[in-house]
């Protein structure tokens, strides 16, 4: 079979280490997730900024769910910024993870910002009528600067 590489089988998500700093050159507040799907995460002020990478479907969305819910539980951020620049594709199972994360952060008065959306992801959010429920930002800086 040809076609691009899709999500590869992943082990169960490793627990997020909120105190671990990245190796050489890492920023203070950087969080190691140990998960390829989330290559970078950091605490910045009252925000947690998470970079997500790869196509997300039913196979690996549980892994994303594990990481996001753990970050929310440990840091109780007022804003969760998800940088989706490296997410060319997601399905409804990934949308369900975003919605569950939103429900969770709202309990503490927080909000979710989605930045750097690619066209397919943006289109699915519109169909799901979530493009006005999440706060869509053009990039991380915009998400962090918003009141």
């Amino acid at each position, binding site marked *: *079979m*040809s*076609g*691009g*590489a*899709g*999500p*590869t*089988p992943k082990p169960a998500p490793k627990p997020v280490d909120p105190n671990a700093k990245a190796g050489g050159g890492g920023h203070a507040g950087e969080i190691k997730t140990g998960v390829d799907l989330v290559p970078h995460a950091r605490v910045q002020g009252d925000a947690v900024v998470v970079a997500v990478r790869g*196509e997300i*479907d*039913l*196979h690996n969305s549980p892994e994303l769910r594990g990481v996001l819910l753990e970050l929310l539980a440990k840091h109780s951020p007022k804003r969760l910024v998800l940088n989706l620049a490296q997410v060319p*594709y997601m*399905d*409804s*199972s990934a*949308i*369900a993870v975003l*919605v*569950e994360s*939103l*429900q969770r952060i709202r309990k503490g008065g927080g909000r979710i910002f989605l930045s750097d959306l690619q066209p*397919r992801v943006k*289109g*699915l959010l519109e*169909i*799901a*009528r*979530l493009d006005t*429920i999440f706060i869509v930002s053009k990039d991380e800086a915009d998400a962090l600067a918003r009141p």
Partner: protein
Amino acid sequence: MVTAVKRANSELGCGRLEMRLTSDPANIAAVRHAVEELCERKAGLDEKSTADVGLCVNEALANVMRHAYDGALNKPIVVTAECQEGGIVVTIRDWGNGVNPESLPEKPFNPLEPGGLGLICLRRMLTEVSFVPQPDGMLLIMKKAKAPAKPAGDKRPKPERP
């Protein structure tokens, strides 16, 4: 895993795919990519239509895995994709519980409640969707027509402004 993939060219020079896979979500991406490739290279669908078909294949397979097979990972699924005049037809056959999603009571879609989005994608993005109950499962037939060709530029002279 995807256990067999057969490809054959029809007399019309149009591609056909048949994929036999198990109901493991790890297989979804490979099937989606293969169907998208057929849409793009053989069926002549544009980028948007190809993406629509890919997402619908993903959502339909996920529904089979989660609902028809209740999360079991080793049940059989057969996917075919075939170019037809003016578009593509994708079928998904399962041997699951045979529940027809279209027979379930329709509840108003709430974006903040899980479930239902996959079926909405199928209804909105495809030209035609039909669930055909089988004695031992379900056959889903999905059709997507090519987007109509854009009309050539209007060469009529524009009226002069007063």
